[in-house]
């Protein structure tokens, strides 16, 4: 764990080797720096999203009278208002609220697994890791449903005007993909797929890592090693995934 930084040899600073100036093991430090570089990747997406979004016109009218149009950036709470088994009922942000709750709870169970690992309590680590995996799988399933709904679109669809063979025609489009978007400007759909997709990929990798940790705990690997530090390292990654979702939730769904 944390090595003492006070035990330096006279004439040598704590940066001359032999001690850990940052007070954490090599593996944990590298996980921190990996997460920092991952934060750069996500902020690349967030920065470009902020630029493109603020370039577009905002919807200024009454939210109740909001309709989908390519003229302005959509109001997110009117886009994400569907919940499974409640077809046609407008429940703005309810489903994404459930997803947020699931991810925060799985972060809590992860930190409880880390706490159990400190005590070498294999049974408790197994229990909390299973809850964490369950939370991650639930979140991914929710996201799969949300993507499906986003791609299929609403029953009514949106009527667009387009120039085909020298004359203006109208056409009804449903849902969104990489070249058509019923909800608003094309960039809205593109950023939705890229940002939530990249985050979802991280959740998927996290579930894989969590399962690996769970497997190695069950087979007694960390008991033989005498340390559950791997739970801590993967825990750092899992909390980071939760942290990114906090930002995605605010900047894509709330603002």
């Amino acid at each position: 764990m944390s090595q003492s930084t006070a035990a330096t040899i006279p004439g040598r600073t704590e940066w001359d080797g032999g001690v850990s100036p940052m007070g954490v093991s090599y593996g944990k430090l590298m996980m921190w720096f990996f997460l920092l570089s991952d934060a750069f990747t996500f902020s690349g997406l967030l920065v470009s999203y902020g630029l493109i979004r603020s370039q577009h016109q905002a919807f200024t009218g009454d939210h109740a009278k909001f309709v989908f149009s390519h003229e302005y950036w959509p109001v997110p709470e009117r886009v994400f208002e569907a919940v499974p088994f409640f077809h046609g009922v407008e429940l703005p942000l309810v489903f994404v609220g459930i997803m947020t709750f699931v991810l925060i709870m799985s972060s809590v169970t992860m930190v409880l697994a880390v706490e159990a690992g400190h005590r070498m309590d294999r049974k408790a680590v197994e229990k909390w890791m299973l809850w964490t995996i369950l939370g991650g799988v639930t979140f991914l399933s929710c996201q799969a449903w949300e993507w499906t709904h986003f791609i299929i679109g609403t029953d009514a669809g949106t009527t667009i005007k387009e120039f085909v063979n020298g004359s203006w025609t109208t056409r009804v489009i449903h849902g969104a993909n990489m070249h058509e978007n019923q909800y608003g400007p094309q960039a809205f759909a593109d950023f939705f797929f890229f940002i939530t997709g990249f985050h979802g990929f991280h959740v998927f990798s996290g579930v894989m890592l969590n399962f690996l940790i769970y497997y190695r705990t069950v087979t007694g690997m960390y008991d033989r090693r005498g340390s559950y530090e791997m739970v801590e390292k993967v825990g750092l990654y899992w909390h980071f995934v939760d942290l990114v979702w906090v930002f995605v939730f605010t900047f894509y769904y709330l603002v």
Partner: protein
Amino acid sequence: MAHHSHEPEVIVAPPNKEKIMHLWKVAGILLVITIFEFIVAFTMHHGSMKTFIFVVMTIVKATYIVGEFMHLRHEVKVLIWAILFPVIFISWMIGALVFEGMKMSDINFLR
């Protein structure tokens, strides 16, 4: 599976009640902030004040996750700064480019 003699003797410590209570308290704070965000989302008029509240709430949540769940608040100062310092530049860049985008919007859609 049969017991192997080379399995190590593991001493399991009792649960640290105080620490576990603290973790659940942090989880409670995160949930309360999220609920508060929902209330703001549905009751407040859309505007820069609303956006400001959301950004502040997000930073508070991020601080709790990184500080308590990821344990950064209890690490050595040099590690805290190694992580926080680059993040300051990220926030600056987000702010700068959002501002830039608004100026570009003003030019594109002269009002």
